[in-house]
């Protein structure tokens, strides 16, 4: 077939046009390299402001974590200033056993009994010589009555003790137990509740692993000379309190503060850490228009640290902020300070300081303010509050303090905000 040149040219034009159609569907609109000069309307102003006072309310709450939920038992002996002891309950002993091929029978003899604890020596303070004392602190007193427990740390109740040099202290501690004493407990179907106390030639502190850390204490003993009868291994268990049952598990092992002579934070400071641990509850008063009508780019809580002289004053600790998840319906501040959004969510920042330090400290909390802005119903909204606490709460004697809202304006907490107002973006 002969095709004329003109007709061929038209075909070329048609194909080119069709290809251009297809190519045009693949737009490339990005105009970044020439910006911002050629992209008017993009410059969005970021405004800065400082809210002071910004706290509607602040207070220090004592007694965290709640009894028995510590990630370890902090034992401390600091002369007249700090004395923290531990309690481990073995309320369920093996009282019956069955020899191989025989019937069940009561335990009538005990030997080779011992209790073993695991030690966490991180951030420990060990003098040249340290004595661990084990007391029988079983009592019928109310479980929450720590004074009754502390009263049982007396010579007449001393079960055993071990004195070790610093070099002899490893991550495991074993107390041999009197077979007669344990047999009597077994036959009387009594509870075995150990009180653990530290006495050093100087300031001493260390942690004993607890059920919460997964390396709990164990009590072991043999009930028969027959090697075919296996050694009894008993883990911490508490029969009381009966109600609620979940509380009993908290009493399997816990810390008891016998003495903490550190003076309170006073009227012009709030406090975090220490033993028993303190939490600072800070409720914010941020203008509604800022939360609703702007995009908050940065929010920095600026605190002024009040130097704290006392034990562990030069030990560095980490103070973290956690957002309160409790709604405004919950009025109990102690409870509110336990209903928290997990650490790292919304407040990823932390403050690393030593108690004796002073000066300005900052905590970035931009994400949290965005959560507050998305909260609608006042009753169901989370409290506009955060809790300051120590990362290793209840395990360290160091207490970090900051000036509170009642302090002079120069040192009181303030919130530094950078925000972008709602702008008519894109209107040329």
């Amino acid at each position, binding site marked *: 077939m002969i095709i004329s040149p*003109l*007709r*061929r040219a*038209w*075909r*070329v*034009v*048609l*194909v*080119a*046009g*069709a*290809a*251009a*159609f*297809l*190519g*045009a*569907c*693949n*737009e*490339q*609109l*990005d*105009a*970044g*390299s*020439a*910006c*911002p*000069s*050629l*992209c*008017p309307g*993009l410059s*969005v102003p*970021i405004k*800065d402001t400082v809210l002071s006072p910004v706290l509607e309310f602040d207070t220090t709450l004592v007694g965290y974590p709640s009894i028995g939920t510590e990630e370890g038992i902090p034992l401390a002996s600091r002369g007249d200033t700090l004395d923290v002891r531990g309690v481990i309950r073995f309320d369920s002993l093996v009282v019956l056993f069955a020899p191989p091929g025989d019937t069940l029978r009561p335990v009538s003899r005990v030997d080779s009994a011992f209790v073993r604890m695991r030690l966490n020596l991180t951030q420990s303070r060990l003098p040249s010589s340290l004595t661990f004392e084990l007391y029988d602190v079983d009592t019928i007193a109310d479980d929450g009555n720590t004074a009754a427990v502390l009263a049982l740390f007396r010579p007449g109740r001393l079960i055993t003790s071990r004195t070790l040099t610093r070099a002899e202290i490893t991550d495991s501690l074993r107390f041999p137990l009197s077979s007669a004493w344990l047999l009597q407990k077994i036959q009387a179907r009594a509870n075995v509740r150990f009180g653990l106390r530290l006495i050093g030639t100087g300031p001493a502190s260390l942690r004993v692993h607890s059920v919460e850390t997964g390396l709990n204490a164990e009590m072991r003993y043999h009930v028969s000379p027959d090697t075919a009868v296996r050694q009894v291994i008993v883990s911490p268990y508490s029969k009381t309190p009966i109600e609620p049952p979940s509380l009993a598990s908290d009493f399997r092992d816990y810390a008891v503060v016998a003495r903490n002579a550190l003076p309170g934070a006073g009227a012009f400071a709030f406090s975090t850490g220490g033993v028993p641990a303190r939490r600072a509850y800070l409720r914010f008063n941020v203008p509604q228009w800022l939360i609703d009508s702007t*995009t*908050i*780019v*940065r929010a*920095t809580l600026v605190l002024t640290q009040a130097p704290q002289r006392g034990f562990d004053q030069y030990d560095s600790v980490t103070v973290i902020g956690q957002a309160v998840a409790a709604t405004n319906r919950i009025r109990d501040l102690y409870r509110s300070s336990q209903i928290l959004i997990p650490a790292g969510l919304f407040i*990823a*920042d932390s403050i690393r300081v030593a108690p004796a330090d002073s000066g300005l400290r900052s905590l*970035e909390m*931009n*994400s949290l303010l*965005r959560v507050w802005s998305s909260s609608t119903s006042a009753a169901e909204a989370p409290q506009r509050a955060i809790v300051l606490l120590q990362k290793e709460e209840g395990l360290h004697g160091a207490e970090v303090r900051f000036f509170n809202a009642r302090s002079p304006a120069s040192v009181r907490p303030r919130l*530094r*905000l*950078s925000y*972008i107002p*709602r*702008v*008519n*973006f*894109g*209107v*040329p």
Partner: protein
Amino acid sequence: MRRLLATALLAAASAAPLAGQGALSLQGFGYPVGQNSTRSSGAGGSLGETDPGSPINPGALPGAGRSLFSVQIDPEYRRLSVDGRDVNTTTARFPVISVGTRAGERGFLGVSFASLLDRTWDAAYADSVTVGGDRVASRVATSVRGAVNDARIAYAWQFNERLQAGVAFHAITGANRMRLSRTFTDSTKFGSLAQETTLSYAGSAVSAGLVSRPVQHLYLAASARLGGVMRTRTGDSLATRAHAPNRYGASLTYDGIPGSTLMLRLNREQWTRMRSLGQSTLDVRDATEISAGAEIAGPKVQGTPSQFRLGARTRGLPFGWNGHAVKEQVLAVGGGATVGRGWASFDVSLQRAVRKAGGLTEKGTILSVGLTVRP
């Protein structure tokens, strides 16, 4: 066949995405597309007053014959030189869709949708800002989609062979959907910004025009559009209020040379009536457009006639940059052929535009492909 394949590949490659950026022509409320059909674009816009497919002069509608349906696509390939760097963008527009039919022996009713101001672009770039006293690296990404459109319903009447005239009502509508985000490298300290705004437009205008042949071979066409109130809204809130731009235009067409038609057109658009739609800093200017062109009968292809067109245009763009007026010069060529025994025509045009302002130069190549059906 090999040549066809090569042509196709070349054309497709030319439209492939390139590293792209901002434009002189996209300042303010956008680029005035011109409302020209592919046919008129090929003649540099000089056919605008007499071309029934260009919704400019309602008096030109009877020239469509018995009925009209036309649609076109106008991809533009832009290159802007900024700081010794070439920035390329590609955008596709569907600037004019027209439908019309003869109403009675002398009347003609037409409806059209055309882009008045096209505003479609993206921008993404690295930037640093000071937040709370710290200089922070961030990335800005923004996009604008949409246009101010002109929806027109027109009626024209052919009084006699020497005079036809028409009137039209215009609804100025459309929206710009705008997104802006700024994300920071350190997302733990700094929250990102994400704003989305839809700016919608509502306005009206009326227009009238005529096409007359006062003497043999000479056609005079003129039209005017009077803009009414125009408003912008963001969400449900009234944002700004101004007026739709007035437009006045006239053209002379001479067809005394056999097989050829020569055109000269003058157009004036009062964009400053839109001033209060934008912010106080909006740099808006009235614009005058002068265009000239020719349409020459080409050879018949298998018995169907064809045309070649060429033209040139100079005009100001309505929105300045950095205190400078943006000027645009266009050279255009085009062609068309009637197919399907006169039931349809296929037009192609290629415009080369050079826009300048304040030492910056932007070059655009606009390919327009249009199909007109006359059922």
